[in-house]
């Protein structure tokens, strides 16, 4: 069994009666970077918080490395590092103390060399004796990352790590994430930015309204997302797609009154000019032309509609 995180039938209904997760099934593979993508309120934080022990699930099971997160909480939680969405830190502590505290709390003996490495990697070394309240928001987030890495976790959860974060920190953070991944750490991050998933993840899960509606390899998902449709409204109906055209990504819809061309926006050449030239040569006249992008939003809507 290669899944390091295995989620089965996980549900969560909050005390308010709100159903934040609906029977979620998800396997995270060992060593991968997994992005959980979804709009605000989709249930990303709820999912992470249940796995990390902060919120109680209402139904279902979660296993980490084959162990139940409730029964074997000691073993399981020692493996996990969490960088929460909210910037919650001890204001009056120094950076060094708060990061060392985290390591102890997670049951590890003191290891100043490791703490030093973590602080240096996150450009926090110069600030080690500063009180946290004197740090900027970006620096505070670095501290939270350092705390999460203090006990050398094998699974790292990053909940919206780049929300409100400057370019510098983003760069540093991805640097750290890459080196962690190279060291075999499994990374699960949540985001509502598709670019972020694109930049980092091996696989992407899309969650909306508490339902996991798709889990796919990033490359495949991006291929879908990068598609655009050119719709040509024809002067007169066609009974079939004219022969002799270079492209094959054509479709005749609405009883032959519309010709739809699907192309990849990310390709070197979209083929639009060629297509239009060839159509003119074939004597096909159109009265209007529109393009539509299959956005993440569309995919959400499609998937949610289909899952009903």
């Amino acid at each position, binding site marked *: 069994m290669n899944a390091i995180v295995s989620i089965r039938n996980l549900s969560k209904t909050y005390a308010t009666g709100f159903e934040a997760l609906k029977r979620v099934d998800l396997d995270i593979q060992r060593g991968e970077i997994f992005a959980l993508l979804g709009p605000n309120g989709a249930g990303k934080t709820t999912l992470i918080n249940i796995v990390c022990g*902060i*919120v109680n699930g209402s139904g279902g099971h979660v296993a980490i490395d084959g162990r139940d997160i409730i029964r074997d909480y000691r073993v*399981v939680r020692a493996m996990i590092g*969490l960088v929460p969405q909210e910037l919650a830190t001890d204001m009056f502590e120094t950076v060094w103390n708060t990061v060392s*505290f985290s*390591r*102890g*709390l997670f*049951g590890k003996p003191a290891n100043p060399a490791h703490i030093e490495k973590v602080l240096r990697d996150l450009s926090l070394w110069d600030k080690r004796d500063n009180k946290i309240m004197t740090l900027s928001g970006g620096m505070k987030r670095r501290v939270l990352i350092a*705390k999460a890495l203090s006990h050398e976790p094998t699974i790292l959860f990053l909940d919206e790590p780049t929300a409100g974060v400057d370019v510098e920190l983003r760069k540093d953070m991805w640097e750290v994430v890459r080196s962690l991944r190279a060291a075999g750490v499994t990374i699960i991050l949540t985001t509502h930015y598709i670019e972020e998933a694109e930049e980092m993840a091996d696989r992407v899960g899309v969650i909306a309204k508490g339902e996991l509606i798709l889990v796919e390899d990033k490359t495949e998902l991006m291929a879908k997302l990068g598609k655009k449709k050119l719709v040509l409204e024809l002067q007169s109906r066609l009974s079939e797609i004219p022969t002799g055209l270079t492209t094959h990504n054509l479709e005749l819809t609405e009883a032959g009154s519309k010709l739809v061309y699907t192309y990849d926006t990310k390709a070197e050449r979209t083929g639009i000019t060629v297509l239009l030239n060839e159509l003119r040569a074939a004597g096909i006249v159109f009265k209007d032309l529109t393009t539509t992008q299959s956005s993440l939003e569309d995919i959400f809507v499609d998937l949610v509609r289909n899952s009903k």
Partner: protein
Amino acid sequence: MNLHGVAAIYRFEMGRARRTLMQSIVSPVLSTALYFVVFGSAIGGRIPEIEGVSYGAFIVPGLIMLSLLTQSIANASFGIYFPRFTGTIYELLSAPISPLEIVLGYVGAAASKSMILGLIILATASLFVPLHIAHPVWMLTFLVLTCVAFSLFGFLIGLWADGFEKLQLIPLLIITPLTFLGGTFYSVKMLPPFWQTVSLFNPVVYLISGFRWSFFELSDVSVGLSLALTLAFLGLCMIAVWWIFKTGYRLRT
């Protein structure tokens, strides 16, 4: 057993006391010294001895108890309430640490601080009045039991409170009046019979009485009863804490 975790919490909480030295040590010592000046010397000089003990000395155990109760509760309730308030509690909840270990760290630190404070106040008091402790071992036993029990009680308040007002509510409305009416400044035996009976419903009477007995062998109620009630209160608080962690009340949604 996650001993590193317990030690981390304990050190963190003790460190907090060091940062707030003014608030956690200096101010209780100062206010106790003021009580001595006012009640011990100024007024106490006009009050006759109580069963062979000078009034200045008589109030020492009660004053120490007053500080122990309020400081234990304040320390422990703040210690756990503050992370809930700022959101840093997430780390505690996600750590491989059991409820018992969390309580050991927080309550252990709060009780340690109170014990240190109690001993400092005792030392301060001995500068004002000559003190003789008849039963040092019992004195320490009552001191430790009270600190632990009321730190646990404070921890419960810190879990229950959902605002800073509530944090102050119980100490202000219940503990302080009970302590003042619990025989800090007088012997219950000095009250009219009716009020003596009423006093027996005040648990703090038993704490102060037992503690005072270990100094002067003077007590309002029997020492055994004092000990039994202190232990019972400790037990109750333990059960309540256990229940809270079992149900996740106010900690996990």
